[in-house]
């Protein structure tokens, strides 16, 4: 089986063409980036604002727990069999819209929860001190709260990315786009070498994405926190990929 997977991976014709792995990889990366961007545009303003005014914490924190209880597979199925359908959506492939909606839905909880928690966990004394120095609400947010909350917010983005990549792979189970197709068609047709090859590619890209975001996390961390070791950034909420 391992040999079959190696053969599949090393055969260039499996990478090229309309349904080759390169096309599927680009399709899935495109889905991932789009979904993450949409999620951040929707989720971050809400989470950061709620954190700033200190309201809606119950909702923001429990959203992640609710998100975990709902199977991504079921949502993908409900969307594609339901009214959203499996129509081709430009570069996003078959069932593109259903997949994008599912990706955003499951990326929102970690982003909102971490965004909210990040702002709320900024030392209250520091916030009071900056108010005492005469900063107004807006200045407190942009100059104090946001920079200090950045590591936790970025952890949320990283968790969301892992979640999005995983969900995008599962989309293939409902005839959706992306690399999951290689795994699904391999396993459903007892061509296990092919399925394993697809799994390897998906896992490797997942690691690359993780490493890239850890790098980004370090870049945006405030200077005094930058020296902390990898993975030691304050991480209060842990979500799970699917």
């Amino acid at each position, binding site marked *: 089986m391992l040999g079959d997977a190696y053969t599949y991976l090393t055969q260039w014709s499996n990478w090229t063409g309309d349904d080759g792995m390169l096309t599927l990889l680009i399709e899935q990366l495109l889905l991932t980036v789009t979904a993450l961007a949409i999620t951040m545009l929707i989720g971050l303003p809400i989470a950061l604002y709620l954190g700033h005014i200190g309201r809606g914490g119950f909702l923001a924190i429990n959203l992640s727990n609710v998100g975990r*209880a709902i199977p991504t*597979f079921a949502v993908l199925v409900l969307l594609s069999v339901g009214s959203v359908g499996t129509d081709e959506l430009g570069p996003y492939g078959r069932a593109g819209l259903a997949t994008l909606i599912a990706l955003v839905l499951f990326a929102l909880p970690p982003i909102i929860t971490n965004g909210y928690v990040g702002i709320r966990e900024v030392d209250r004394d520091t916030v009071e001190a900056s108010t005492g120095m005469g900063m107004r609400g807006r200045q407190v947010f942009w100059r104090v709260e946001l920079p200090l909350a950045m590591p936790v917010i970025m952890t949320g983005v990283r968790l969301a990315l892992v979640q999005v990549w995983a969900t995008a792979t599962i989309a293939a189970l409902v005839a959706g786009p992306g690399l999951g197709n290689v795994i699904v068609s391999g396993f459903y047709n007892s061509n296990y070498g092919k399925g394993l090859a697809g799994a390897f590619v998906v896992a490797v890209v997942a690691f690359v994405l993780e490493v890239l975001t850890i790098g980004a996390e370090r870049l945006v961390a405030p200077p005094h926190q930058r020296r902390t070791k990898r993975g030691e950034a304050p991480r209060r909420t842990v979500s799970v990929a699917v």
Partner: protein
Amino acid sequence: MTVLSLAGTTTVAAADDPSCYARTTNEWVCWAYWQDYQSELIDATTQHLQITVAAVVLGFVIALPMAVIARRYASLKGGILGLSTALYTIPSIALFPILVLFTGITMTTVIIGLALYSLTILIRNTLTGLESVPDDVRESATGLGYGRTRLLLKIEFPLALPVIMAGLRVATVSTVALTTVGVIVSYGGLGQLLADGVQNDFKAEIFAASVLCVALALALDVVLLGIQWLMTPWVRARGA
């Protein structure tokens, strides 16, 4: 290999019987489906429950000693946490095929995969729980002559229990949801019904499987909450 063997055939809805799950009507909410396919639903739910419980138990059995080791040897802490976090980066639909290399197309593959996922939460929470035990308490116990093991079993674990149980609840709930992906190796519990529903455009089946899946997660959460309530009588006493 028949991938969807569990779900069986779905086209048996008789043409002369305009039931709500017939091809022509194909309704989402259809009580007749729940009745007619009762045994299928029970089988899938049972398999789902089996996989989830086995995975969480296995994960917990691995996580407990890992957390204790990470607590005792600070130098290993980073490695243990890093490894468990790295594991969850791999999407489950890719992890199961990789595990097939070792355990084949079996239920064991799904159970091991899900157990590995639960480690991230279980180790982290158990460790947080153990670390939250106040130093004074630990010192008092040592002063009273408690050895390391007795301290762990009689003082640290009971005090860490609420945080450990919180981790167990989160792990269980997410494992229920993840089990559906086991469909890739033909052991997905309710996921088998979802996959079958997609292939045959069978809405009643999809709806029933989705509802049962969320209900199972809720039910297990409540059970664990009950266990926690029973195991921490001192918290109740304080609250009253």
